[in-house]
């Protein structure tokens, strides 16, 4: 009985160590981003995002900030998109990336306080759990669900 208990303990400790190590390394970019899957192509999703922005100009980032939607170069994996919450004076950063021929991942990455860049906080990393949940719910209610409604 003692042997079994010891074996289970070692296995559990080994798993905990593995998860700890993996979280420590956390390789790749945007590992904390909140991801949402869409069953449409990336180009269609970008069109819907642009439609949403045109219909809701209050969510467009003021021009003086200089943040432009799009890929930074031809080889960029991610199409970067920015929204603005005028009430909270916050910039919201998301990206899209194809995850199949007719599938696209949309990721909510970070929030910048104010219109001066450099105050970015990553979702699922730099916010308290309450604030994190609040920001995700706000993003889903104000933007994500509205974009989803456009998919027919």
């Amino acid at each position, binding site marked *: 009985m003692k042997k079994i208990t010891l074996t289970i303990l070692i296995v559990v400790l080994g798993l905990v160590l593995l998860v700890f*190590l993996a979280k*420590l*390394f*956390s*390789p*790749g*970019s945007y*590992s*904390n981003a909140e991801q949402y899957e869409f069953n449409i192509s990336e180009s269609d999703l970008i069109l819907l995002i642009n439609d949403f922005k045109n219909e809701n100009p209050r969510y467009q980032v003021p021009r003086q900030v200089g943040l432009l939607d799009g890929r930074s170069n031809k080889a960029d*994996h991610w199409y970067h998109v920015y929204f603005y919450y005028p009430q909270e004076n916050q910039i919201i950063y998301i990206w899209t990336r194809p995850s199949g021929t007719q599938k696209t991942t949309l990721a909510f990455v970070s929030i910048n306080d104010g219109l001066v860049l450099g105050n970015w906080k990553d979702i699922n990393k730099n916010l308290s759990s309450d604030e994190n949940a609040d920001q995700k719910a706000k993003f889903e209610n104000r933007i994500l669900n509205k974009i989803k409604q456009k998919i027919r």
Partner: protein
Amino acid sequence: MSEYPAIGHDRRYDNLGTAGASGLLLDTRTIGADWQFVGEELNISGNQFLNPIDRVDAFILGVGLGLASLPKTIFQLGSGPAGAAETMAWYSVSNIGVTNTPGH
């Protein structure tokens, strides 16, 4: 010095569209990228011309990531020649355009 392999490793993950702890522990497509990272770090740790702090850092990083990647590697290679071939194919995909040079 020991951070340079991490740049290429992150880029290989980006090429595959995976990231984070789940990618490292569960995504078998990244096995080639992981072991390339381990090899590069162990190379640094074995270089007697580098300073000891860099060498120890590189050793810890290499062994640590290798440990995290080991279970999925055993699982994948245990599935036979097809598993090994798949690993090689995904490594080629992950390697496209990747260097360890910062900021490009």
